[in-house]
């Protein structure tokens, strides 16, 4: 009987080491970026415009570009995504159509960003004549983050106990009234989580933005202006070797933003789960 217990001990150690390595890699990457990037970051870096293609100065236009592009994507993707989630959870029994829609959502989630980039470039930039613009980029990004929002909202709506709906329906509410007044408010933290994860996705994306929104380094004044997001700015600075300091600085801001967004999303999700369990 010694052998199984021996293996138990060995495997436990091996698995622990594997986990430790993974966590170490994560901390290494984050700390490496922050260590090299944070010395560059100050209020001026955040709020001033870049000079000499980003060799000097700050990243303010990129912050604006990132926010505006993300807003466009979120404003369009949220109603579409939440609407789909409502239909999939509240209106349908199992059926062929539903499994097709669900399959479509899964597929959309798996499509590589470069394909979205090609598609957005042909449809919005060339075919619809929107050019490289925030609108082209935002619309393409909408398609990319839609699956995330649908899936997270679906989970949130499903987790609302049935008794809530029954109370509302028995009080004479219609189905839609029940959804708007009871289901959605209860599922709100989950839905917001989905939106936040969508925000994170559109902040980190690079290929799609270069293909559809371009990379003009200026504060955009309309939705038809091209913009450069922080990820694209980082990519160009680092890859073209324009300025390593500013590249690290931009990366540090990116990593901090993503960290905060993720933490906020988990906090919300946690609240939702605590509420119904």
């Amino acid at each position, binding site marked *: 009987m010694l052998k199984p217990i021996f293996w138990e001990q060995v495997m436990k150690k091996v698995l622990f080491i594997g986990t430790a390595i993974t966590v170490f890699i994560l901390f290494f990457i984050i700390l490496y970026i922050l260590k090299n990037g944070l010395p560059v970051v100050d209020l001026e870096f955040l709020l001033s415009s870049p000079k000499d*293609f980003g060799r000097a100065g700050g990243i303010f236009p990129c912050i604006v570009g990132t926010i505006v592009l993300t807003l*466009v994507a979120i*404003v*369009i993707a*949220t*109603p579409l995504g939440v*609407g789909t989630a409502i239909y999939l959870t509240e209106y349908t029994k199992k059926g062929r159509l539903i499994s097709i829609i669900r399959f479509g959502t899964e597929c959309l989630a798996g499509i590589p960003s470069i394909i979205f980039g090609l598609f957005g470039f042909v449809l919005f*930039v*060339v075919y619809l*004549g929107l*050019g*490289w613009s925030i*609108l082209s980029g935002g619309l393409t990004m909408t398609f990319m983050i839609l699956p995330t929002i649908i899936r997270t909202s679906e989970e949130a709506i499903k987790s609302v106990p049935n008794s809530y709906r029954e109370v509302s329906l028995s009080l004479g509410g219609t189905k839609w009234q029940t959804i*708007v007044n009871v289901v*959605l408010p209860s599922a709100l933290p989950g839905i917001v989580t989905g939106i936040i994860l969508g925000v994170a996705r559109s902040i980190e994306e690079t290929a799609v933005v270069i293909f559809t929104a*371009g*990379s*003009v*380094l*200026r504060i955009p*004044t*309309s*939705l*038809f*202006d*091209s913009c450069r997001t922080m990820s694209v700015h980082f990519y*160009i600075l680092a*890859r*073209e*070797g*324009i300025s390593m300091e500013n590249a690290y600085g931009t990366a540090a801001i990116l990593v901090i933003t993503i960290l905060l967004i993720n933490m906020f999303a988990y906090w919300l999700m946690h609240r939702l789960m605590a509420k119904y369990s």
Partner: protein
Amino acid sequence: MFKQIASILMCAAIIGCAKGNMQQAETINIAGSTAFQPFAEKLAEEFMSAHPDVRVNVQGGGSAVGIQSVQSGVVQIGMADLVTLPKEAEGLNSIVAAKDAIVIAVHPDNKIDNLSLQQIQDVFSGKVNSWEQLGGEKGEKGEKKTIAVVSREEGSGTRNSFHDLVLKGVQLSPHALIQNSTGAVKMMIQTDPSAIGYITHGVVTPDVKAVAIDGIAPSLKNIKAGKYNVVRPIFLLTKGELQGKAKEFIDFILSPQGQKTIADNGLLPVK
């Protein structure tokens, strides 16, 4: 909630459209060659400070994007850095805005200063694959130091010009590393002591070492005198005759002031 979202969306779209239309008269879009892009950005900055009512949007994208987007009307001006324009550019007006020398570059620690045209062809075709064979150093432990050839991607204007002017029909080795911008090629060269590649003269800094070809160094003096002849034109492409601000911008680029900006930043002026 949905009504609100919908109304916000509508407002945003309307404002966006209105602004877009309002500005269309004053916006110049220019796209294409990544080699000329930094210069175009600088020229645009100067032009805009003289004409505050005009916005010049400069996009990179590459020569093909430049040609296509002029043809399709997405931009008014395209930039192309090819020695010969492809058939897709037929029917476009082309103006040579500047000339650009292509430089063979190696890591600053590399002892090699000069290569013959034949040697360059051998290196890029993969026939010669160690620095030792060219009279360079061995590795630290005396091992063969392989040459890392860095090239641009298929279709690139710089690559096509390099093939036309230097390789002259010799096939590039398939083992060459491929990078899709001048800056990325330069990054490879300055970080890898065994690398060799070609970049435009305008971006040469002390981070890399420019190699002389057959004893002629790619100095500004030699290039201007026509001694260093790995030089290609940079075209501005337009569809038909331009009107208004876009024409003014091209005139500005060709003006003494514009040409001076080009020369100050390392390209060759045409006037």
